Structure formats: C-alpha cells, structure tokens
C-alpha cells in the first residue's frame, strides 16, 4: 500500500468531500475531529470498486476514535463514552485541536 500518512495518536479531522456516488464515510462524522487509533492496513478503494474499477493501489485504512459528546449535541452519556470506525486516508486531514 502507499506509505501511511498518519501515525497512531494523531489528531485528525474528517473531510467533507463532495463524493456523489458510493462511499463509506457516514455523515455523522463529517467535519468532526478524532484521533487515529491504528492503521488496519491497505485496502482497495470501495468508491472505485463500486463502479467496476479494481480500486488499486490499496490505500491506508485507519481506525479513528471520537468522543461521543463531540459527535452529538446534548449527548446524554458520560464524557468518556466514545465511538470508533474505519476511515480511508483520503477522508482525513491533520487537525490541531479545538
């Protein structure tokens, strides 16, 4: 796969890319800030595979963690509650804290 850009622990923001077709970045994390937990490895891009391309070369896929109170206004649970999901590198950019 292409060399990973983000080390574990890096603060990142989810980009709000204008992708019109198939994608796997849920809207509830767009524009949100989270932290890289790990890199899952390289995977072909599903946005291209959905339309017949092989989606290669594999791109880094990261497991990214968010605090729930940063995702949902008025989140009712404790501040420590979190959420994590897998996101492709091209959906992420470095963040610098809020």
């Amino acid at each position, binding site marked *: 796969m292409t060399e990973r850009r983000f080390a574990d622990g890096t603060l990142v923001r989810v980009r709000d890319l204008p992708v019109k077709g*198939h994608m796997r970045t*849920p809207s*509830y994390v767009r524009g949100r800030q989270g932290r890289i937990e790990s890199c899952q490895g390289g995977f072909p891009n599903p946005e291209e595979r959905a339309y017949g391309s092989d989606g290669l070369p594999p791109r880094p896929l990261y497991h990214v963690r968010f605090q729930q109170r940063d995702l949902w206004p008025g989140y009712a649970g404790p501040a420590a509650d979190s959420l994590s999901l897998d996101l492709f590198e091209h959906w992420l950019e470095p963040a610098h804290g809020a």
Partner: protein
Amino acid sequence: MHDMGGLPAGPVEKDEHDPSLAERRVDALMSLLMSPAVAAFNVDEMRRTIESLPREVYERHDYYERWLLTIESLLVEKGLLTRAEIEARIAALEADGHD
C-alpha cells in the same frame, strides 16, 4: 438514506425470525455471485446498487427482497441476464402453478 447513523428512530424490535428457505437461497445466491470463483459483481457494487434503490422501493420491500432486487439489477447491468428473460421465466413459473 442508507446513511442512517444518528437519525431518530423508535425502539429496537427484537425481531428474531429465522430466515426462511427462500431467504437463505437469496443469501446463498448473493454469496456465490460475489465469490472469487464466480465474481459476477463485488460487494461494493452490491452496496452501491442497494443504496441507489428509489426510496419507495427501499421502503416497500424487506431486507431479502431488496437483496433480490439488487442481484437482479446487477445481473442485468452486467449483461448476464436480461429483464425480458427474467420476466418470461417468472410468467412460465406462474403458468406452471409454481407457488
């Protein structure tokens, strides 16, 4: 509308019904068609197709019916089957009294 994380919704209904034989058949078709040996389409094409079902179709059909519609749509898109031959076969099965 498949992107539903965080949308308001009612209580989780603990639907535990075991899939029927027909549903298991759809599941098997889906698995086989996406398997490396057959490779009629891939999982991302399958998701893309389900996601583009018109809202009223999405809402009118349940999980496995949507999968069957998706399989049909992709097989036609890939030129592996035509709508005409599918409809003709359905009519033939109906005439034979296959219920």
